[in-house]
């Protein structure tokens, strides 16, 4: 059968078998392998994509059911070469280790922030409760999402200095090094 949908803003049309699952369509036909495929039983959430803006487990949706809908995968999070604040948050706060759960985690987080720009830690944990991370213990994921909530525009190359230590903090660091080593460092 023929299906058409919007994937990350582009129209795609394909001839598929009705039994093809959305996760396989995205990975194998569209070759967008950022969407991961894990448990296959709607439990782990690594396959989460946004369908008409809502997170869904793409291993439990037929590609045919996505006909006519708008899909966003992790590849569609960045705009014009700038990472989404959620992606930046995962970098800043070490929201990933192996990265297997990360695409799903980031898409659910994006959808959460779209409707609730200032979630509590509990609300973040609730939103991602259908998704598993075997590495981080979730604490850094929650911090990553909070970082994105605190930086709704993200940070750009030009103002990256906001993340760097202030002059006072650098002076303190230099003083500590000097104390410990007896060597003068810094300006």
């Amino acid at each position, binding site marked *: 059968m023929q299906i058409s949908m919007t994937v990350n803003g582009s129209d795609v049309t394909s001839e598929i078998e009705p039994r093809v699952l959305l996760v396989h369509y995205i990975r194998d036909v569209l070759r967008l392998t950022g969407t991961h495929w894990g448990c296959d039983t709607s439990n782990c959430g690594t396959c989460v994509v946004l369908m008409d803006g809502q997170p869904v*487990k793409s291993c*439990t949706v*037929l590609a045919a059911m996505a*006909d006519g809908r708008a899909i966003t995968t992790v590849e569609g999070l960045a705009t014009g070469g700038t990472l989404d604040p959620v992606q930046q948050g995962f970098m800043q706060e070490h929201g990933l280790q192996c990265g297997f759960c990360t695409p799903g985690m980031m898409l659910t987080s994006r959808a959460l922030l779209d409707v609730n720009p200032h979630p509590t830690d509990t609300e973040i944990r609730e939103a991602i409760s259908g998704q598993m991370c075997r590495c981080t213990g979730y604490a850094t994921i929650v911090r990553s999402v909070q970082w994105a909530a605190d930086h709704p525009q993200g940070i750009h190359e030009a103002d990256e200095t906001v993340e760097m230590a202030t002059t006072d903090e650098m002076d303190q660091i230099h003083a500590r090094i000097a104390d410990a080593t007896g060597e003068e460092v810094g300006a």
Partner: protein
Amino acid sequence: MQIPAPFDYARATSVADALALLERHGPESRIVAGGHSLLPMMKLRLARPEWLIDINDLFELDFILRDGNQLRVGAMTRHTTLLESAEIAGLFPIFADAERVIADPVVRNRGTIGGSLCQGDPAEDLTTVCDVLRGEAVIRGPGGERTLAMSEFHKGPYETAVGQNELLCEIRFPIRPRSGSAYEKVERRVGDWAIVAAGAAVSLADDGTIDDVAIGLTAVGVSGTIAESEAVLRGEKPREDLFVEAGRLAALASNPIADQRGPIEYKRHLSDELTRRVLRSACARAAVSPSPTTQEG
């Protein structure tokens, strides 16, 4: 890799179209709503329909509507919508209690009340909710529309009164004054199916005695509501010793099996304890709910 066996797919454009498609493609055609019970079964080849009739475009079945002293809920209403509805939370707090612990938020974006009831999984939560609220199922088929009480709707595990060529369209709930309801579930981990869950709905008479009460248990082999426990409470003022007796009788009426979720004794204990808890909170909610004079038309 789990992939369903081959099938053909059609997307219905209206209720009439869905019924026509079921008729045309015959006994091996099947409705798919959220697909979060059916697709996993198809992946495991526990179900092998030849045709899937997708009803996700039937927005006419996605509604929550107050109609006089009834609340009407369309079969395609998603778990998330039920959880977020202020109208439902006000009238039937048991829904929010249950929805909060059904699967996880992402699954709840897809799963529907119609799919849940038609799946008829013994551990499924909304069956108990609809049972104790004394819901009625509105079913449409080639012969027209029929309305069934929940007791007639359920035919046993994974079996309902909905024929292969029929569609569950909506569930209707009577709205009663001075009523309250509650649900409580114990699960192994967040998002899992119930080890045991209990639900209760009560309505109070003007003098504060219990006018009507319904108690149900999930995942312990009880079908319908538990008459023995209800009889203890009816006509009495809500009291802790009655809740305790109702819990004891509910545990006796339960018929759990031992499985990976726990042994029989544990499940009976939960049946008792959870029945008491939902009765306490349903009665407390009923006591503060609007009486007929304060209720808007």
